[in-house]
């Protein structure tokens, strides 16, 4: 394992689970609201139901997203919420990315 150089850009510190474009979109939208349902995320991200569902499963497994099953007007409605763990991970990701771009020379 090579020694860590102080001048090296910390790629390894970038959260790859969040960094994937579709998941980054999902997490960004969930970050600015308390919770949102599948319909909302499909319309905003342009992902298909299957695709979105797969990404949500990955985020849920990591403990970043909480899936809340509820009934709205007697119909099942699934709300998605970014957990505190997910919010913290996203904050760290944002700071790392910011630092990463700041360190790239002009």
């Amino acid at each position, binding site marked *: 394992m090579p020694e860590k150089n102080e001048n090296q850009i910390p790629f390894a510190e970038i959260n790859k689970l969040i960094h994937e474009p579709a998941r980054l979109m999902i997490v960004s939208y969930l970050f*600015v609201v308390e919770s949102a349902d599948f*319909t909302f995320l499909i319309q905003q991200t342009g992902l298909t139901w299957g695709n979105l569902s797969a990404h949500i499963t990955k985020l849920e497994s990591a403990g970043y997203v909480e899936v809340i099953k509820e009934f709205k007007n007697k119909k099942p409605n699934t709300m998605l919420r970014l957990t505190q763990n997910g919010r913290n991970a996203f904050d760290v990701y944002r700071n790392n990315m910011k630092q990463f771009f700041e360190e790239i020379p002009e």
Partner: protein
Amino acid sequence: MSTTINFEKLEEKVFTTMHKDGLLDVFIGIVLLQFVVGPLLTDIGFSDFEASSAFIPVWLITFIAYFLIKRFVTKPRIGNIKPGFKRKSKMIKVNIILTLILFTGFLTGLLYEQFADSIRMQFPLMISMLILAVASVTAYYLDITRFYYYGLLIALGPIIGEMLWNNGMVSHHGYPLVFGILSIVLISIGIIQFFRFIQAYPVVNIEE
């Protein structure tokens, strides 16, 4: 810093998407119709009270229709969100400020009853200021830019109407003409927006 601004814009986008269906515009347009139809009803023998009351069922039907269309047409297309903490506190602020403004409006109405002769000329201006205040507060806190323009146009209504009436060009303080035009404009914008919304957001099939 730029990160913060982008997320604020994203939050604004999320919230304003919920009002892209044009229903609010149609609703305000129908509310304005009262100032068109009300004065004309007095011409055919209705008292002021009857002419004003006649609009209560219209408002009620419009209000119910607004919620039914939101529930059965808008929501299945756009989905549901629960706003974040910042937006919730913004909503609380807007409700408090609007209540204060409407209370001021109520006091203005009482003042008009007592000093009708001495403040007759200033009354349209006071009403305009109130309308502008309500629209601007709503536009600012809800991030709906077009409400600034609506507020300005509606606020100009009583002033322009009064000017036309003073010159003997129109009846009923010019309200039927001025608010009639405004009402048609708002309802038309709302209907166009509604059909654009329907096209832009098809119904999504979710496998719950």
